[in-house]
């Protein structure tokens, strides 16, 4: 497909700005201070606007422009993804996430306990089994299932051993081998005499 130099120049510029902006962002996160966000966006927008106006002076557009626009968006999203991944891979983020989870659990714990207790009280008053009771029964059934399977395994092993023993009894050692052993004994006795 034919290249459209105006759009290519535009995307080259934006790509360069994305890379520079990403480096700025990464430096911001590393320094642990809130820098001016327009430091990231201003050069991006200024040069983007300059490229846009240049683009529209260069004659008719083809739908090719749309696929290049899509490519640009893909690159933009990929750049953001990289930046976010770097930011989220820091100890600071992990610490912040951990703190947030702790706070959430601190709220959840009493709420959950209160909800469960009140639900159990209501269900008990209505004569309906509570969730914990149903869960308890389910666990007992699981244990029973395990025990039955264990028994099944032992039975299978016993049956296999019995089958083997029966086979040995049903098909004892061939008598010719016994007769040959007996003949050898008689020959040895005669020579001794």
């Amino acid at each position, binding site marked *: 497909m034919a290249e459209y*130099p105006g759009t290519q120049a535009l995307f080259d510029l934006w790509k360069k700005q994305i890379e520079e902006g990403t480096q700025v962002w990464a430096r911001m996160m590393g320094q642990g201070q809130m820098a001016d966000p327009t430091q990231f966006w201003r050069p991006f927008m200024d040069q983007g606007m300059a490229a846009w106006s240049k683009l529209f002076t260069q*004659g008719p557009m083809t739908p090719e422009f749309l696929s290049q626009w899509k490519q640009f968006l893909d690159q933009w*999203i990929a750049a953001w993804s990289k930046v976010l991944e770097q930011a989220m891979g820091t100890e600071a*983020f992990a610490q912040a996430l951990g703190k947030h989870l702790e706070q959430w659990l601190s709220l959840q714990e009493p709420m959950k306990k209160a909800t469960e207790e009140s639900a159990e009280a209501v269900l008990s008053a209505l004569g309906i089994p509570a969730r914990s009771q149903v869960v308890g029964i389910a666990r007992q059934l699981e244990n029973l299932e395990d025990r039955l399977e264990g028994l099944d395994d032992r039975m299978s092993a016993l049956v296999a051993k019995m089958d083997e023993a029966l086979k040995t009894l049903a098909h004892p050692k061939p008598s010719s081998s016994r007769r040959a052993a007996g003949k050898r004994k008689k020959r040895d006795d005669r020579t001794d005499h």
Partner: protein
Amino acid sequence: MTPGSTRTDQERGTAPELLAQWQEEMARNLLRMQNLAAMIMNRDEPAVGPTPREEIYRKNKSRLYRYRSSPKRRTPVLFVPNLGISRPYIFDLLAGGSFVEHMINQGFDFYLLDWGVFGPEDNDLTVDDCVTRILPRMAKKVLESSGTREFSLVGYCMGAPLSACFLALHPEMPVKNLINMAGPIDFSKAGLFRCWLNPKYFDVDRYVNTLGRIPSDMVRLGFKLLKPTMDLSTGLNLWWNLWNADYVRSFRALYKWANEYVPIPGEFFRQWVKDFYQGNRLIRGDLSLRGAPIRLETIRCPLFIVAAKEDNIAPPACVRAMIDAVGGRDKEYVELPGGHISLIAGRAASVHCWPKVSGWLARRS
């Protein structure tokens, strides 16, 4: 040449060609609108898991499925996916786009272990239970139903370290081949999850003691946080390809799967985080299950490891570590393009991954 322009009219294309291109683009836009309307109006669930199968065995929530086939290869395959997190129909998503279908077409007798969807009654399920009770029983059922004396074991994601522990703990099990697909082994290189689950910042005991289990919403949050821009790029790609009916069909199926998360039993999660992510005990060699040590070096069967280059859940270094940890001589490692999911599901998987896995197994079956 007009002033200010850098190309001739010939290079830019003639007016009729330009018109034809714009007409095509308009037609695509109309198709986009049409398909978008159809997606919104169509409330039917996409049909997933098309390959016929039968349930061989069930143990509580876990199911062992055997896919119907006319196997040409003697050694059956037991596929062990991740426990919790997501549903396993991703491996059999659509006709023509299914790893299971591919393996059956290659002549394998294919079994899938579906760990199931866990409820509060399963909160006590541990890693020990999975490795010492469930997996041995599933393996036994595979041998019984296939009438063979040995089988191949394929673990994907979490299923791979579980399979490795099972094999290390049960050397008497007749496992002929072992495949690790994107399964983390050295958790010191496990990327963002390793960072977030650092014991300095994440108190797993408090988490499990409070909630009992990891609810599906929390699982979803964790995975969405790994790639916050995923939804944006998914939406953009959907819009771009919305004119393509096949793409829309695949998207609907994948979207269904990607939004269906499964809770993780509390005790399993506690042990998984402490022993694997935080302690990294599997690769260090000091992991014990039911009091028995797990030594990866006792695994001596042929081993094939497949990692995905852009995997942010089980990065290549994390997966690759298994090659040096096991015994045996027949070992191979490959790194393929894609991410954690696209390694095994999707068009790229059918080109890069599936043939390699089936080819390696076929030579040893």
